């Protein structure tokens, strides 16, 4: 395993594994972390996986890994890598099985104190209207042509059906739709898996959470984002469900032969890839974009359902219950973006696997109201702990492919968490702290215990100190709904 002493220190918050570390590396690896976080990070295979990721053909700049990084498969979680377009490759393993797993944040004007008597009811209704957990189905049933339209249009499909506002669309990364989706490249099996799951949260670390805005670190930006101190907000964390999982499964399997065809040698079969301008690469791009659009539509339907829960809970009792979208971000995605390399603009395919886009002020693609602040960057903490709203910076565009961290980052295996933590006891502890919990599985809850994750405050401090994001607001949970 790679040790801290193998790393070259750039600053207290930035380290490098040089390209010379291993002969098959094509670019260096840059790690955003403090020394203390590196102690956790070096306890699993994430650094080795980052080095493996650096062997992909067509990589430019360096592979970046965020302070919430941890062992994955193929890429580590928390990695960002850019391949030159069109000559470089695209790797499904660099995006992940849960394509466009991401987070949506919506804000209300309900003061938390006034809402306190209603939080339990709200949690119950969210649990009811936003299906979560193993085997839970979605809320709409779609015909094949309609599903294909959804895969092409993403959130825009939801808008046409009356599930979204114009503001929701504008305040979603890529306006809730990756252009160039090709539903014909999504297998029948993937569509079967996804068709029955639209409007559902899933299980694992996915959740719907009601928070209170605990502190405003940048009141001016917070006001632009629509965040008010001590008011309720809602986070939704989920992705493309079985459809995305199957798309990645299909293409990782297909690309096993593709890499041999193109003479690409890789240290991990999960890193298989295809040249972006090849028929195989284009097929995956079309399918991946379709899955990403599915996830955008999924989070949109969940937001719609959550709005019903807020209305039913608060309408006629409190004012300001309407939820206004702050932003919706992806953290497992592959996108064509233009970045400066040695001062010159270059079109690249940015693979983000467990990392969030963090575009700075003035960046193209941001809604007009966010051009001065930079993009909201949503960082959910581990269950029961704080979450953060950050803003992207110009430095992120220069140093981290316009990216930042995506969460607290696991540091304990699921098996160890299940062994050491009792879900019932955890739920009791959270409720003692005033956090309503609706969970479908106690062992699933135990796996997501805060002690299984790094300290989100330390992760955020690192990206802020490195200059790739800045603090806007800190959130505290009041209710957690998960499978």
């Amino acid at each position, binding site marked *: 395993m790679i040790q801290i002493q193998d790393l070259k220190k750039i600053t207290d918050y930035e380290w490098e594994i040089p390209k010379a570390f291993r002969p098959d590396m094509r670019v260096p690896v840059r790690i955003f972390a403090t020394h203390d976080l590196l102690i956790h990070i070096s306890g699993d295979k994430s650094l080795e996986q980052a080095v493996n990721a650096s062997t992909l053909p067509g990589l430019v700049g360096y592979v970046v890994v965020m302070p919430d990084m941890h062992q994955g498969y193929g890429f580590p979680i928390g990695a960002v890598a850019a391949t030159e377009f069109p000559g470089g490759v695209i790797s499904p393993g660099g995006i992940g*099985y849960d394509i466009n797993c991401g987070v949506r944040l919506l804000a209300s004007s309900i003061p938390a104190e006034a809402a306190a008597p209603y939080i339990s009811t709200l949690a119950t209704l969210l649990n009811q209207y936003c299906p979560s957990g193993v085997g839970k189905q979605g809320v709409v049933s779609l015909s094949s042509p309609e599903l294909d339209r959804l895969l092409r249009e993403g959130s825009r499909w939801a808008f046409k059906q009356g599930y979204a506002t114009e503001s929701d669309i504008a305040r979603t990364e890529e306006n809730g739709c990756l252009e160039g989706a090709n539903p014909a490249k999504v297998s029948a099996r993937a569509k079967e898996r996804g068709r029955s799951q639209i409007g559902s949260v*899933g*299980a*694992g670390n996915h959740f719907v959470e009601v928070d209170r805005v605990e502190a405003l670190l940048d009141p001016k930006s917070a006001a632009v984002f629509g965040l008010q101190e001590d008011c309720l907000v809602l986070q939704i964390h989920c992705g493309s469900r079985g459809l995305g999982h199957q798309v990645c*499964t299909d293409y990782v399997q297909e690309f096993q032969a593709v890499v041999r065809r193109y003479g690409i040698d890789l240290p991990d079969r999960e890193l298989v890839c295809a040249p972006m301008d090849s028929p195989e690469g284009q097929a995956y791009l079309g399918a991946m974009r379709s899955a990403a659009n599915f996830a955008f539509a999924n989070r949109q339907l969940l937001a719609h359902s959550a709005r019903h829960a807020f209305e039913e809970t608060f309408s006629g009792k409190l004012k300001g219950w309407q939820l206004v979208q702050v932003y919706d971000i992806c953290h497992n995605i592959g996108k064509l973006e233009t970045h400066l390399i040695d001062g010159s603009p270059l079109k690249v395919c940015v693979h983000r696997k467990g990392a969030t886009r963090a575009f700075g002020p003035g960046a193209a693609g941001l809604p007009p109201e966010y051009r001065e602040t930079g993009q909201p960057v949503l960082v959910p903490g581990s269950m029961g702990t704080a979450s953060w709203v950050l803003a992207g910076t110009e430095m992120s565009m220069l140093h981290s492919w316009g990216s930042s961290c995506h969460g607290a980052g*696991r540091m304990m295996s699921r098996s160890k968490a299940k062994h050491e933590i009792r879900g019932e006891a955890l739920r009791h502890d959270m409720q003692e702290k005033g956090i309503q919990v609706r969970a479908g599985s106690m062992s699933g809850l135990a796996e997501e215990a805060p002690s299984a994750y790094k300290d989100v405050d330390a992760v955020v401090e690192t990206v802020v100190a490195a200059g790739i994001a800045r603090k806007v607001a800190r959130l505290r949970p009041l209710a957690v709904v998960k499978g």
Partner: protein
Amino acid sequence: MTSFSLANLPQPAQGGRKDIKMYNYTSMDSMESGFEELPHTADWAVRVWAGSLPELFVEAARAMNTLSGVKPAPGPRCQRTIEANAPDLESLLVTFLSELVYLVEHEKLAFDIFNIDIQDTQLKVTMSGSSILSLSKSIKAVTYHNLQICKTEHGFHTEIVFDV
């Protein structure tokens, strides 16, 4: 062809590392069938071993069923057949296990009796199961991460990482 039944699930072995459960009939050295959970930060990983390749595939299915808590319901049984061609044995294994993932998730079916025939890189499985009685965890996908089926003088072993 080889038939195996999951009618009597093994209990975890006593002692040893408490964060790794071992489900083994005999030790890996003698290469009878078995599997053990391996630590992985965010996903699931298992090491599987068996005296023959078909047995390895069955143990991998058992491992996956055990980790996800899949139990078939008593009552009417159903039969399914999987036939697959793949460039290599690892791809065959991923194909087989991925099919089980799909059947659990989409058709709500759990399979616990397998007849497996492997000829070069061609697979035929006839299996018996029923509707799901219980399921505690979803497996999103079977990965190729570090997947290598190794042959020794005693049999076969491999390590599989599942995305959960």
